[in-house]
């Protein structure tokens, strides 16, 4: 008997079930999406991100967004994703796939967009796809993201009601909530352990 069969058989014996026995529905998922207007979402998102030492910036125009990004990078090296919004703001600097990993490891800043943002927790929601990679928001010490205000959802419940099965969309969905941090030594907070210690989110 394979390990699979052995385990499934033991589980069924312990539970008093047989293969193919019916399973009742687990009941409706417990989610509630509040009604919050866009301005309020921006305010909530900014406040939540600031609490986590992240830096929100509401830009009036693409030019202003681009300027802000350049001022953060301040002449250091950067790598960007292939999101069209970065092109529009004039801050796109993607590299070819063969250089991708090395560039992520060497760059001071990673510039991306995000699929959504969550207002109540100050999170960015990123899917891996042909535009957004996993490592750009992870390896460089500074992460800069440009999003549009329409992408800000109220919170986790709204995200899971829009994307009930994230696996249908991408192999990787990551919620980024503030900076990389640890408190493993004497419960003292240190930022930027393995991921970025600095996170900027520009809202257009």
């Amino acid at each position, binding site marked *: 008997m394979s390990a699979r069969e052995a*385990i499934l058989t033991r589980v069924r014996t312990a539970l008093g079930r047989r293969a193919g026995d019916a399973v009742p529905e*687990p009941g409706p998922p417990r989610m509630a999406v509040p009604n919050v207007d866009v301005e309020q979402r921006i305010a909530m998102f900014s406040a939540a991100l600031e609490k986590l030492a992240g830096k929100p910036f509401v830009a009036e125009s693409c030019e202003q967004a681009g300027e802000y990004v350049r001022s953060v990078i301040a002449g250091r090296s950067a790598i960007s994703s292939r999101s069209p919004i970065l092109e529009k703001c004039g801050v796109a600097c993607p590299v070819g796939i063969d250089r991708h990993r090395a560039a992520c490891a060497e760059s001071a800043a990673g510039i991306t967009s995000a699929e959504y943002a969550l207002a109540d927790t100050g999170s960015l929601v990123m899917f891996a*796809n042909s535009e957004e*990679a996993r490592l750009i928001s992870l390896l460089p010490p500074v992460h800069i993201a440009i999003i549009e205000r329409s992408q800000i959802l109220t919170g986790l419940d709204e995200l899971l009601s829009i994307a009930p099965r994230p*696996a249908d969309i991408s*192999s990787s969905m990551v919620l980024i909530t503030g900076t990389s941090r640890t408190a*493993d030594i*004497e419960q003292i907070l240190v930022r930027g352990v393995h991921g970025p210690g600095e996170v900027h989110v520009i809202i257009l």
Partner: protein
Amino acid sequence: MTTSAANIRSTLENANLQLAIYTSTARLIQKRRGALAGDLLPDYQELRDEANRLKRHTIDHLDYYLELFEKNVTAHGGNVVYCETATDVADFVLGLAKKRGARLIVKSKSMTTEEIDLNHRVEHHGLEAVETDLGEYIIQLAGQRPYHIVAPALHMTRHEVADVFSSKLGVPQEIIPENQTMIARGVLREKFLAADIGITGANFLIADSGALVLVENEGNARLTSSAPKIHIAIAGIEKLIPRAQDLAVFLKLLGRSATGQALTSYTSFLSGPRRPGEVDGPEEFYVVLLDAGRTKLLENPERRQSLYCIRCGACLNHCPVYRKIGGHNYPWVYSGPIGAIITPQFHGAARDPWLPYASSLCGACAEVCPVKIDIPKLLLDLRADVAAYKEHAGASSAERFAFRAFAFIMRRPKLYEFVTRLARMLAPQREGWISRLPLGIAPGPVKQWLSQRHLPAPAAKSFRELWRQR
């Protein structure tokens, strides 16, 4: 992994260690309280009920959800590997490493791999396995096991970390936690980029998506699961939940209960290897589903709830026993109240008969448990196992005699009144009399017991007497 009275005594007498445990758990208690205060999470109690209900539903139909999960992982190009024992997991990892010519493994914190002692098993065969969570890395260098489910190096001071780093990494003594963290970052960054295999655990396995969820703060789990070409996640079969949407319940509870965070820095939702068109990510994706004793826990419908645990560590922080004896005096990798209920069920009542008694039954653990495991109830239940075992082993004749005498008296009201009156006459009418008894005459265990007690003087009249005179 032995526990002895001498080890516990040395923990209790180590003032620095006591301070480290006390302040760290106090901070964690404070953080949790801060995240649940006022109306920050108004439906907290309803969420706990729902989490308990969802876990019960999943565990009660686990065979169905295992197969559903497997089907969906496979549909996304991943592989599910069932393992019955710790050895099976090591054999799988070693076999895959050999086939792919892999030498270096990076690991992100996982209690399940601690449980099966995976690092030593693979290192024995010439592979290098590096822990990448900062706390876990420190204790790996120090050659210890985790002190706490969430904060593995909770017991170490910055000075001890400085010693470990300078002796194991050859760096100068550095006592500032920020700089210590940067030293680890530098060393581990090289490992991430060079690693052939990344091994993670899983906080949740999502049946309807064939996905796993990793909850973390440092980014090491993200790196472990996306930098190497091969990602292996090792999880107990009890980690399943039915749907991605159920995360709306569990994620709200886990971060707050563990570290007082609404969401941790990173929540990764991973399903299968990199897909066509995706820029990066692993080329191979395996989920190891581990039994290693879990199906034994399923047999008893009451005790099954031990498998609901989402490893937040809140019961450890709030336990007066854990906060005195610390993590290493528990006989297995799972410490605190949750360890006290799962260890005897995995290993049997005979191996550590004292463990279910390592609790004052104050109920703090049940009060803070986000999935509402009735830990005190299970501890009592397991004490019955120990009593039955002792009875069987014939090791409890004195205890049996005492309880028989007690039962004999309790069944006879007249005799009971006589005995209590006698006790009142004999005991001095003063507070604290019992600690002033000439303890020299009391036998060992009784002496120990009495030395820690402060009994009030008996009342002048018993309740039954007052009742009659009313």
